[in-house]
């Protein structure tokens, strides 16, 4: 290992950065898992089963025991805006398959934004939304993106505990950061080292490049 390190210092630095960043990501995942469990223990996060009555509905009109979407942006805003939400599982039936399904979160007074949005993951007939670990307030579910669809809200389950492994699966953005970040970091460190070397060189210390 030592010989390899001396022989290929650049490769070693690159390798070390990837290992360190991966370790850091695992540690963050562990930390989030522990934090989540604490929040469940102290009751900040609790599993609750809700119906459509617990939401303020927009662009959704009651019809045939369900709701007709009257616009392209139907919304279900959780009435209890203070409730902290970590995960959402929706059990809904649709007349026709819905278009883009998303969930938003926002602190009171904060606008909903695409930067605070998660897409639905289909699990069998249900949809699951995973908000940032630890939970956020101000839940809004957009169950469809098309007008004229009929949907029935059977149940919305908040804060089902997410499985352990889910804390270690990066999102696409995190994956991209994990891919490019360590190499960029290694490049930065190498440049700093070269810079220090150059500085010593300018002060009369022989340079080593």
């Amino acid at each position: 290992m030592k010989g390899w390190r001396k022989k290929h210092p650049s490769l070693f630095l690159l390798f070390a950065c990837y290992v360190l960043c991966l370790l850091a990501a695992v540690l963050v995942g562990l930390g989030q898992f522990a934090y989540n469990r604490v929040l469940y223990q102290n009751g900040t996060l609790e599993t609750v089963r809700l119906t459509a009555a617990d939401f303020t509905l927009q662009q959704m009109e009651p019809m045939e025991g369900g709701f007709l979407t009257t616009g392209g942006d139907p919304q279900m805003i959780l009435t209890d805006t203070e409730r902290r939400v970590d995960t959402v599982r929706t059990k809904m039936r649709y007349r026709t398959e819905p278009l883009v399904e998303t969930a938003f979160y926002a602190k009171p007074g904060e606008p909903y934004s695409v930067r605070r949005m998660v897409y639905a993951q289909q699990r069998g007939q249900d949809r699951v939304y995973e908000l940032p670990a630890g939970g956020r307030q101000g839940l809004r579910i957009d169950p469809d993106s098309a007008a004229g669809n009929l949907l029935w809200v059977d149940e919305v389950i908040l804060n089902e505990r997410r499985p352990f492994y889910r804390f270690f699966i990066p999102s696409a953005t995190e994956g991209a950061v994990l891919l490019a970040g360590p190499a960029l970091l290694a490049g930065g460190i190498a440049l700093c080292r070269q810079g220090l070397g150059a500085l010593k060189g300018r002060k009369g210390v022989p340079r080593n490049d």
Partner: protein
Amino acid sequence: MTDLRVFLAFCALVVLALFYMERGVRGSLAPLCAVCSAGLFFALLGCAGLLELAGWAFYLFCLLAAGWLLYRWGYRKKPLPAPGFGLWFFVGAGLLMLLVLAVRRPMFVTWDEFSTWGTAAKLMKLNDGLYTTAEVGWVWTATQPPFLMCLGYLVQFFGQGFVEWQHYAAVDLLLLAVIGALFSPLRKQDWPLAVPLALIGFLTPFVFTLYIEPLKVAPPWLDSLADVPMGFLFGGALAAWFAGQGRGVRRLLPVCLALAALTLTKDTALALGLVAAALVCVDSLVAKREEGRDLAKHVGLSLGRFGVLLACVAGPFLLWAGHLSAAAGVNRFELGGVRNAGMAEMFLLFFRELFSSEKSEHFLLVLQGMPERYLTSRSTMLGSGALATAVILLLVALAALLTKEAAQRRRCIGFGVFSALGFLPYFLLITLTYIYVFRPEQAFESFERYLYPYYIGWFLASVLLLALSARASRFVVEGKAALWGLSLLLTLRCWLILPPVYTAVAFDPSEFDERRRFEQRVNELTAHLDPEGRTFVISTDDTGLKWFTYCYAFLPWQVDYSYGGGPFEIKELQEDGSRLVTPVDAEAWEEHLLETGCTTVFIDKADEAFAQEYEALFEDGMRAYFDEETVLYDVVVQNGQVQLVSADILL
């Protein structure tokens, strides 16, 4: 199976790149040579009506090349040339990009993809021939040059059917090949610059094409339009020259290929090609003279290079003009539009009007508006066009300051001055198209899109110059740190403006569900249609986009012009550029259906007002449509009269 063909095409391109490398082309420039030459080969044979043959010949050649390389490197133990970071990048990033696209399967969504670029690409796959002569059911003026569509055909050569994400993959491979060329100056010890350069290359289309937070998935890297590839090839041609190695053909070949490909990317690319050729000539003139070569010989050589590059620009342009003239009867030298002026005539008209005392209102409006927009209108993430220019020139100035080599400094100064001068004719060309080609109400339409190809190429070439200077810097680290910092700044700028879920990095496949559903609907519908038939589409709330989308999706089934979608109106262009709009009554529509030979009428959307106007033509007075029993009516002609009879087809 259809997914595998893209990976096969990627392998073929990598083999071709290795072949170029073995023949003496710099490793980092080899992918650019491979992609450009492959696309040009398909375009050339396509013009001769031998597109399918081009496919077989290309894959056979790559197979033979793979065998030859294995024989040389494996059996004969010839030393492997250094592939350089560029080739590694092309292989790694290309594979990753293909995997991401194959999993998420994005689709076309923009107007121009359905009206022009996507339709042309789909026609090529469906007909195994160039799109210029294809029948699409409406007046198809397919004058757009074929390079990108040829790349799309190349990656989808095997198997049946056209797949949209695979066309994106073809365009993205071209962009990756150009980014690979940016790595050319890097030696082994310059590895800290590799990721910053890759990041800069990846972010460049975002930085120069977006300036506000998008409301849906942003096009860069998921785009079949020619503007970004045109900018990349402009930068790629310059990068290939700046970072080339060797002498003679080996030095000039990558530049020639990139310039020829550039010319066949879009009509306005001719101007970019000429500017690039001139910039190479200037660089060649200011370069250090080889020992023993006198000034006259040096100038002669530079002018000779300029001549070769001009031929590489003019050759493909004339070839395409000849093909258009022979196959489609279109004169490429005439630009059409409101004045129907030729290219040279447009410049003459401009100068005549400029020095005349009587200038049209539109002329003055465009002439004043263009510089104003360039100076003040925010059109890139860096700010206005003027600010983007300032940032680019700052990079060139930095490159000139950092280097310790006088020749490199001369090169930077020459490039800085002449690239800025070269921007003027390009800017003038765009101004003239707004005056003489577009309708008055279209003035400044897509202003940003027509200018950013120049910024993109200019920026990429400046980054490469900075990388070259950083390598041989007086301040060994500062140049590299500048590039490292630039990549961080661009990342931060993109992060602030672009939500990652609306970029190619992290978009969700469900964003394309609507298009998928649309395609599914059309497939269900076309299963009931006569392949030889022609369908009239009614969609009363359409602005034209839906009609273009149906035209595209129906192919190879043909959609009638249908009054261009939307309201039933005949729009005629007047001599003064304005449009005469005449509403269509039931009698005129009946006549149209008879004249065009439509066999079916598809109703996407119609309201009661529509029914009141045209119900006499429907056998059931449109009752079946409003009762949700059918969306399709058969056109039945009896005694010269049209009756629309319900086909009882509901989707």
